[in-house]
């Protein structure tokens, strides 16, 4: 093989990679937070809502989970703008990722909520907790603790999937890589570097989620055991 690896472009372009990674973090943290909110509300609607509401949430979840993220992003970015709703690439990315995250969170949280036994709700009733208190403290937090591993890996998968937003020119990490490689013709080196950055980001997210889990779930912090 006569090819000589050359990482010299890094000396000049590393700020681009940092900026790209930073946008990836911003996009994904925003859509994880929003998507989690959407998904939790939908999961509650799916378990406790009326038949119509349950059906609507069901259609939303199935439609999103059975179509590619790439197409969802295209519909939000190109589709909505052709209907007159012009969103920037970054906003479109957050909207599409949130909608996607929401559907997966709904399914995961639904499993968690359904695992909360009836007697827990009756006990909360007896203690005189209001409906909101019951949902927050008796249903959601324990439900979340039970499905936290599944939620965490879904969050990390979303971070990796955010690379797809490069296709609508949101200037995140993958788009930065595409730009740098077309300037330098060092595509192999560029993509290897970006792959390493994504690996580091996955590790960072896993660590952060583990730490959040410790703060959120007292039982786990005190006993040190997974549920």
């Amino acid at each position, binding site marked *: 093989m006569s090819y000589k690896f050359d990482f010299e472009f890094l000396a000049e372009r590393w700020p681009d990679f940092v900026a790209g990674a930073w946008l990836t973090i911003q996009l994904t943290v925003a859509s994880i937070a929003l998507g989690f909110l959407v998904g939790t509300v939908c999961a509650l609607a799916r378990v406790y809502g009326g038949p119509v509401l349950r059906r609507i949430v069901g259609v939303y979840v199935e439609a999103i989970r059975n179509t590619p993220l790439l197409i969802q992003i295209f519909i939000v970015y190109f*589709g909505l703008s052709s209907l007159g709703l012009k969103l920037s690439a970054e906003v479109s990315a957050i909207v599409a990722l949130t909608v996607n995250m929401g559907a997966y969170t709904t399914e995961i949280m639904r499993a968690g909520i359904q695992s909360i036994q009836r007697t827990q709700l009756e006990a909360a009733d007896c203690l005189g907790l209001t409906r909101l208190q019951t949902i927050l403290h008796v249903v959601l937090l324990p439900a979340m603790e039970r499905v936290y591993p599944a939620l965490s890996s879904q969050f990390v998968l979303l971070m990796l999937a955010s690379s797809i937003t490069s296709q609508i020119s949101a200037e995140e990490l993958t788009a930065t890589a595409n730009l740098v490689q077309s300037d330098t013709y060092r595509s192999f080196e560029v993509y290897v570097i970006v792959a390493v950055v994504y690996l580091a980001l996955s590790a960072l997210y896993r660590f952060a989620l583990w730490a959040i889990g410790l703060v959120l779930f007292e039982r786990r912090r005190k006993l040190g055991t997974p549920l």
Partner: protein
Amino acid sequence: MIQLSATHILYLVEAARWTVLLSLIAFAGGALVGLPLALMRVSRSKLLRGLASVYIQIVQGTPLLIVLFLSYFGLGILGYKLDPLVAAGISFTIYAAAFLGEIWRGCIEAVPKTQWEASDCLGLNPVQQYAYVILPQAVRIATPPTVGFMVQIVKNTSLASVIGFVELARAGQIVNNSTFEPFAIFAVVGAIYFAICYPLSVVGRYLERKANAGR
């Protein structure tokens, strides 16, 4: 301006055949590499376990899109210019193998330990143990999650569009370039993906219910 017509829809449906073919290649390749990976993950040798685990960690921590770019543009610049179909096939194999390997590892480990002990007592060697006792049971446990993962594979083949392979997503972009009706076109493309994926999801769920009912 060209109107969206039945011809366009037909073109999309024809492109969907490539999506199906790509999915089959990805699944076959993923299974071929994934099974040895799963066996390595449960092997007694620390080295084999470690190697498989490192592979899975790396692939599950990198976006599939980057793997695709590496095998198409990256290898191209190193002098190995691959056809988009080959590059996509390799990338999807790498990706699917990591996930299937991890799914199947869980299924092999889910076979009760007593089955190992019993087959040991009967004097079966490790190959016979796997072939006649462990794997047949693991396959039953593995079927529902594997069908579920096939949905992920079908959806992810849409990424092959970025290296210029004309499957369903790319065909949608091509039609859009001539008709400029992105909302309608991508809705149709989405619907075709849905038509492929939803039956798989339903079958996966059905199998899962059936498997759980037995226990």
